[in-house]
């Protein structure tokens, strides 16, 4: 029963790709390798989170670079979550999931970068004197 199900799943995977969140192809030692993958993901995420909090509070690092460093750590941790928890990989059975993700990331970048760019330009082009400009931004 179980084996027939697994066989169907594998056939389907080979032809249609894999569901996001599903483990890679079923194998005999699947249980332990799935556990190992999850645990590696947890360890990496803990290391990255701890580094983020340390970087934000330390005085050892060059201050202007800290924001950029925190951004890089966040992106790395999102990658860890995608690969180790959601099992989104670059494998051929994952093309659909990765393409959808890539489109999502494109829209996110457009929304965030576009908003910040336009709002900064609006502020810079306002012809108010500096002190009134501050008042305007405050409310």
């Amino acid at each position: 029963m179980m084996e027939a199900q697994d066989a169907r799943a594998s056939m389907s995977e080979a032809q249609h790709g894999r569901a996001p969140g599903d483990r890679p192809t079923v194998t005999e030692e699947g249980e332990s390798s799935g556990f190992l993958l999850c645990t590696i993901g947890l360890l990496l995420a803990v290391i990255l989170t701890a580094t983020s909090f340390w970087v934000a509070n330390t005085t050892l690092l060059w201050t202007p670079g800290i924001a950029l460093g925190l951004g890089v750590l966040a992106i790395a941790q999102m990658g860890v979550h995608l690969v180790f928890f959601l099992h989104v990989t670059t494998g051929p059975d994952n093309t659909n999931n990765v393409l959808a993700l890539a489109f999502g990331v494109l829209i996110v970048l457009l929304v965030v970068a576009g908003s910040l760019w336009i709002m900064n330009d609006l502020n810079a082009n306002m012809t108010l004197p500096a002190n009134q400009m501050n008042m305007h931004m405050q409310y």
Partner: protein
Amino acid sequence: MSIGVEINALPPEALPIPSEAGPASKRIVVAYGFWIFILSDIVMFSALFAAYAVLVHATAGGATGVQLFNQGSVAIETACLLASSYTCGLMTLSVRSRNYAGIYLAALVTFVLGAAFLGLELREFAGMIARGATPQSSAFLSAFFTLVGCHGLHVTVGLGWLVVMMAQVSIKYITPAVERRLLCFAIFWHALDIIWVCLFTFVYLIGVRP
């Protein structure tokens, strides 16, 4: 001998080509559709993030993030959510191996950690409101409560969903339909953790830097 390995060992020509293979299994279609929904949810969060980034300095002379945010509490919230994401992954493995005790245990730990996260967040909100930093007092605080509150609302919905799923598992056992729903729940819960990574980095860590 593992069937998965056997299928992988077949030459590619032995399998029908995708255009002749018929529709994909329901499990793949459902999970892919839910993945699209999660991505659209992330796009919605990106708009809230953009609004927050634009309004972060518009404090109307009131309290700023540096005065309001407490990093210790955020660190504990982060640890709770990360650990619950891990136990949710373990629950998915238990579902796969039909280990009911494992499912209930992992679901319980996931629920308790998620509830602890939510409790800490609500306590933080209550503390801010008690100090007069209400959502209506400045554009910065409106954006903050919308962004973080929206994530908290997602976690609340996730906790309710988890309870419903455990009721379904105990009554219907793991049918293909229940298994699909559990897979969608796992995707939802992991995605919440991904959004929280953005939140604590950009709001609580970078946001309070001078």
